[in-house]
């Protein structure tokens, strides 16, 4: 009886551990896919801004182009960070997830700001 109880505790613990691990896996996959989507959207956004800047003839063109280049570099660095994130082990993943998300939000905010400046 005691042995049976012990075995059932082990089974429950294994099930719980399995659930936790699959939940983590799902969170990781979801976050990485979302980040890749946000990066792709950022690229599309920057490409469209590049097209708009091409047709500018005023004095702000050089300045806008410089900001656009800067954002494209930031996007490239975020993309490398995502590659690192995907390859990293679980303990470290959680720690750098925040940095990845922050890089994306700064990139998105700055892209929005550039777009607003262009269309002003």
């Amino acid at each position, binding site marked *: 009886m005691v042995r049976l109880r012990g075995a059932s505790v082990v089974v429950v613990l294994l099930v719980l551990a399995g659930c936790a691990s699959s939940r983590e896996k799902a969170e990781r996959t979801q*976050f990485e896919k979302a980040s890749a989507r946000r990066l792709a959207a950022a690229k599309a956004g920057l490409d469209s801004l590049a097209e708009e800047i091409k047709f500018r003839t005023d004095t702000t063109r050089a300045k806008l182009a*410089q*900001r656009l280049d*800067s*954002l494209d*570099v*930031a996007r*490239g*660095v975020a993309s*490398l*960070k995502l*590659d*690192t*994130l995907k*390859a*990293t082990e679980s303990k*470290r993943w959680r*720690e*750098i*997830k*925040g*940095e*990845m*998300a*922050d*890089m994306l*939000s*700064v990139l*998105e*905010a*700055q892209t929005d700001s550039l777009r607003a400046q262009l269309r002003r």
Partner: protein
Amino acid sequence: MSRKAAYLIVFLVLAAFGVWWLYQALEARTPTSRVARQVRILVQRKSLPLPGTSRQEAARNWSLVREFYQRRGTKPAWTDGRGPLSVTQQLVAAIEESGRRGLDPADYDPAGLTDQIAKLQSVPLGTPPPARDLAALDVRATYTYFRMANHLLNGHVPPRSLDPDWRKSPRAANLAGNLESAIRANDVSKAFDELAPKDPAYARLQQTWDEYAKLTQAGGWQPIPGGAPMRPGERSTRVQALVLRLTATRDLLTGPSSYDGVVGEAVRRFQARHGLAPTGLVDATTLAALNVPAGSRLRQIQLNLERWHWLPSDLGDPYVLVNIPDYRLDVIENGRSVLTMAVVVGKRMSPTPMFSDRAVAVEVNPYWNIPASIAKNEIAPKAAQDAGYLERSHMHVLSEPGQNGTEVDASSVAWSDTSSDVSYALRQDPGPDNPLGRIKIALPNEYDVYLHDTPAGQLFSAKSRDFSHGCIRVEKPLDLAAYLLRGSSEGTPEHLQQLIDSGENHWIAIHNPVPVHILYWTAWVDPDGTVQFRNDVYGHDQRLDQALREGRVSQFEINPQPQQEESGP
């Protein structure tokens, strides 16, 4: 075809078969073939006690042994059926000299190997030694060779066993091919040289190991008795001991009897070589460094030679080297430093990890995305005490870390609750308060460690500079950025200064990403031959020393399943 011709063909075929059979029979009786047969028996055995620091290591080397003999049809490599070949003696010599390669000869049992060779050589002339014994020596020598070769290639101790955050780039080589070349060229030492790091700095450290080994064998140096700080003008028995000590390591070439200017200069030289303030006075810290025994310095050199084996084969050219114990960054071009600066590294409680990465971009006027641990432990208490702290520091509170980062009102956060995980993110705007300063060099590594400027420039004047949370603060960020961006119109110091002055966040790509190596050297030799020692700031030397001592050779059964031996003559 006539019947006669058919008989002739059958006869010729039979004759050819007979010749082939006779050849095989004679060949099987040659001493080499007898040993080859015994080698085949040995390598087919699955249960064989072999030395190793772990079962995995023993199994990996054993699989190399099998691959090696399979490639040569189990033909012996170290013996010729009549006795051991000269390469066996070369292997013993290489083991005995392995200290200068950062290895410990005792790990490869040179005495046992020598005994085995001597026994086989003592067989009376005209009588070939037993094939079984020759095969045993052959397999043992091959196994020992691979064990040492693997240690030269990737080190004896996996760095992650000492520190889970220590990343190394495994070096690969065709070890079976390497041994084949050693046997063919009859040169074991050269083959080992091919596996060792090629950087001239490694060779310089090896030469220094030789010198310190000689010094240690000759008794090293005598400790200088303790007492008050020694100053110029002093004459005492302690000064005589100081002169002897400085002469032993060639900090001083002549031996004056008093503490004159020459001795003061030698003390300054010694202090500089040990990362101490070059005051020229022998205070307690300098005395402690002077009194480290020669044997301990020898061991320190050996530990650093071991670390060389953890590095990638090609460090790149140019590359950025950050040496933690030296609190210094150097840009190395063609083996020489072309740019050097002080750095501040992680505290002992939050050490900077060791890894290799690439500098891919420069961020001017960076934002600081504050890590959750710093937000919780350092910022939240300040925000709880002072409602205006965040605003004055140009920090923004964002909803849930890792999400879209919508800005929220700072007053909606319970700052005094530090019991649970943070449910917000903090970001600081670029500016004079930002701890990343005006320049950040992005390295896309998994630790979020980067090189950056700092508004706390006064810390660079400290001798020990372990103050950060793990990131590396650099003394001359503008010079470093300009170097990394050289050749780019955006990378001139003037343009970078303009961008800084604009106050706007700006990214510039480094079109040829430069390798960055964050390393831990407590002993190295400058290109001009100056031997440098530094303190073991994170205790990595101590842990490595212990691991090497504890990881003494054990016997492992490769696959402890009984298997019948192949029967043979």
